[in-house]
């Protein structure tokens, strides 16, 4: 009896062994074809000429062109400026939220997350409605103070800086809040006991300990700003690298300009790789600093200081929510011009973008649902491999997943155009001629959210729970189905919802790859706005806002978690 069992076991094991291997192979092929190959292709194209010879000529061209040098300089200044501004804002808010107690603290800690989950393209639109030349604020100023010429709040690099800062500061806040909360109070007490004054302790102990989380957040802010072309173009700024990359790629006429676009996107991928290296370097410290027994106690602020804190946070929130009010008003206002708010209201723009031309909404939902399907099929197994196994290449898998977070949509959009334009052997058209390219690029872009969500909840399912199931006779698949899955579905759901919402919001990669008939909501917003139909753009924007709001509510209801950990 015993010997019969002992014989039966290995055969069953050997019989099933090639299925997992096949699955792992499928994951690698997917990542290889749709992530590694396009990114590698960008580098190859940046370093080769039309005949396929290796050359650095494109970089020399880039470096000798005064316009590109200025654009690069502008992009760097804008990126660093945004990092500086978001850092000041993000740190101040994080310190207030973690270290001090005041009326409305928990409300503010929820509110500060919202800008990051709002669709960025919609944010820009809103600023133009409220702060533009004929926007609410200028109209009021002209009415009240007899201002003759409107103040230029947003058109120009300073406007891009403002919009990006108010959109991205939660990226810093989230990471710093996380790091601050993990600091062992004894580390600060030790500094006090040897005589460090408060500000010195902050500068030499507290802030350095938040560095790992901060660096990850700051790099993402920089990469985002550096590679965002929609915001500058809406605000009329063209001499930035990302804007040039977009204009150069979509014109399809001048091959030299096209190459410049590729060189620029190679820069962006390089930045993303830099992010990956930095993120890896800090992992060790991150682990160490989480070795804490308790939390630093919150200090209750004096009434006067509470008023200051609340005033400061309210101002930031007000500024962050301006665009949404603007978009809402613009979407229902008829003939809104030269008045602070619209005088006549209508639903005709919603009718136009939902009933008359439903393609934007239909396409967006179709592509995003397919994308989330791919995310789950590929992402959950990746999470399982990362959390539970030591398969060869596990580190690379982890690295690729982190890399995706940092590769900008602009770069991956350009990469896909280059990589999938030519028909593969045996086909007469390339993949870029089929709409499935859009769900594929969305799935790659949003894969990390599904992986991270699933991974986090897998870590909560202690291995011994699965082992306990195995000890009472459940096979691996069976224990996964009966024990692991019921305990981790929330994580998968949260990650998937997040992937879905951000897929709907994706602008840059989709703008590059979308062809006639495939227009998504974001493509609609962009083209309506550029064509001067701001109201239709606003109506589409409101749809994205509603989806974002509903998704965040559902995520909070399902998981009761904050969205920390999703961004770095």
């Amino acid at each position, binding site marked *: 009896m015993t010997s019969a069992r002992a014989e039966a076991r290995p055969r069953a094991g050997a019989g099933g062994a090639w299925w997992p291997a096949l699955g792992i192979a499928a994951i690698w092929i997917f990542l290889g074809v749709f992530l590694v190959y396009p990114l590698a292709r960008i580098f190859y194209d940046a370093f080769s000429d039309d005949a396929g010879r290796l050359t650095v000529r494109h970089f020399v061209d880039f470096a000798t062109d005064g316009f590109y040098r200025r654009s690069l300089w502008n992009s760097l200044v804008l990126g660093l400026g945004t990092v500086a501004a978001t850092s000041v804002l993000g740190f101040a808010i994080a310190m207030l939220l973690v270290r001090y107690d005041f009326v409305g603290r928990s409300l503010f800690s929820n509110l500060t997350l919202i800008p990051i989950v709002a669709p960025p393209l919609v944010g820009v639109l809103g600023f133009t409605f409220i702060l533009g030349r004929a926007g609410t604020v200028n109209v009021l100023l002209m009415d009240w103070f007899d201002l003759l010429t409107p103040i230029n709040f947003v058109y120009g690099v300073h406007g891009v800086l403002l919009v990006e800062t108010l959109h991205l500061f939660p990226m810093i806040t989230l990471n710093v809040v996380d790091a601050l909360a993990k600091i062992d109070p004894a580390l600060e007490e030790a500094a006090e*006991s*040897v005589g*460090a004054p408060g500000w010195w302790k902050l500068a030499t102990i507290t802030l350095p300990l938040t560095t790992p989380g901060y660096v990850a957040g700051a790099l993402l802010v920089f990469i985002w700003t550096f590679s965002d072309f929609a915001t500058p173009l809406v605000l009329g700024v063209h001499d930035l690298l990302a804007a040039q990359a977009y204009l150069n790629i979509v014109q399809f006429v001048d091959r030299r300009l096209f190459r410049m676009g590729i060189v620029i996107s190679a820069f962006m991928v390089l930045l993303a790789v830099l992010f990956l290296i930095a993120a890896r370097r800090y992992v060790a410290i991150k682990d160490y600093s989480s070795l804490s027994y308790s939390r630093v106690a919150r200090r209750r602020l004096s009434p006067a200081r509470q008023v200051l804190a609340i005033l400061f946070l309210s101002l930031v929130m007000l500024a962050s929510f301006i665009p949404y009010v603007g978009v809402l008003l613009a979407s229902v206002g008829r003939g809104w011009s030269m008045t602070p708010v619209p005088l006549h209201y209508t639903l005709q723009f919603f009718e136009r973008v939902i009933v008359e031309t439903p393609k934007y909404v239909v396409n967006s939902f179709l592509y995003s649902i397919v994308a989330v399907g791919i995310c789950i099929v590929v992402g959950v197994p990746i999470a399982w491999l990362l959390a539970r196994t030591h398969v060869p290449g596990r580190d690379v898998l982890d690295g690729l997943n982190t890399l995706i977070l940092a590769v900008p949509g602009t770069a991956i959009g350009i990469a896909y155009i280059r990589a999938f334009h030519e028909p593969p052997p045996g086909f007469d058209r390339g993949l870029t001629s089929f709409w499935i390219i859009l769900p594929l690029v969305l799935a790659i872009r949003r894969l990390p959210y599904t992986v991270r969500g699933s991974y986090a909840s897998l870590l909560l399912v202690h291995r011994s729970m699965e082992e306990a199931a195995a000890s009472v006779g459940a096979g691996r698949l069976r224990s996964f189905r009966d024990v692991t899955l019921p305990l981790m579905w929330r994580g998968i759901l949260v990650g998937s919802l997040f992937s879905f919402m951000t897929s709907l919001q994706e602008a840059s990669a989709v703008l590059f790859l979308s062809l006639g008939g495939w227009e998504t909501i974001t493509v609609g917003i962009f083209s309506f706005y550029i064509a001067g139909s701001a109201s239709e753009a606003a109506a589409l924007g409101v749809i994205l806002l509603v989806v974002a709001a509903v998704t965040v509510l559902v995520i909070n209801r399902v998981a009761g978690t904050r969205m920390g950990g999703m961004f770095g």
Partner: protein
Amino acid sequence: MNIALRAVSKKFGATAAVDHATLDIADGELFTLLGPSGCGKTTLLRLMAGFYRPDGGEIWFGGRRVDDLAPHVRNIGMVFQNYALWPHMTVAANITYGLKLRKLSTTEIARRLAEGLRKVNLAGLAERYPGQLSGGQQQRVALARALVLNPDILLLDEPLSNLDAKIRLQVRAEIRTLQKDLGITTVYVTHDQEEALSLSDRVAVMRDGVILQTAPPRELYERPRSRFVADFVGVNNFVPGVCRDVAADGATIDTALGVVRGVAADGVTPGGRCVLAVRPENLVVGNGGDNIVEARVILASYLGHALRYDVEAAAGVRLKVDVRDPLHHQPLAAGQRVRIGFGSSAALVLTDDVGAS
């Protein structure tokens, strides 16, 4: 420098973490606060360090009242339970952090760093980061960081609790030697009674924020003043009873085992409820001492240095009896009837501060 606490109290919300603690710690003494978790020992240490301000009472370091002073002006050195080494700084940077704040010259800082590293046997590791050190090494860096400032008082908060058992013994001995060499007044917090006994000049046992007894280790073990102390320090057999009479040469107590002669602690009054406490190593199998009890063997456990019998005496009273030198002892089988004897000098009659259980 000597330390004096006068009726020091600290409340967190409604609970008194430290309740009217009064202590005198002599110059150069290694003084231990011992008790279970939540007894207030760490709170009391942090009151001395200055991380908390007392709600009432006074704290004196030498002739200076310190209870309203910030930690860094009290001239203390503190070692935290998890060492609290700054992970982003090297060993050298950790140790010299406080020296730099005191604006000492570069040569003086270098001299003190070298001296500090030598004291704790860490020479050569100055440029490592804490994450690259073993637990024992980290512990010594924390000690060096506290000592280089030449503090008047050294405060140690469960410094050994995160170390492996073997290293713990070694570091324990090192701390004791170092403390004796430097002659520095030291307050040591632990929940490990063996550690407290082996290390300290004197020990204070705490429960629920109250100091129950302050005594040298030997007195604490041999003459505990209450049931809680007798139970927390070492192993003990307890038999509840009623005190019959108390005299200078001994007391008699009515228990389920019959009338037993013993030594009464303070606070035991004739006619009052009390408890008999005898340690297993003071009980002998067979006739011995002036108290004899009939019992039956339940279980024998081999402990290496002793063989411990669990026996049941009259009225279901269970006793633990140690046979030292098990090598020359023929084990008794379960169920076998035995006589258990103990001397009245080893039988303590204590107030029962744990409860009638």
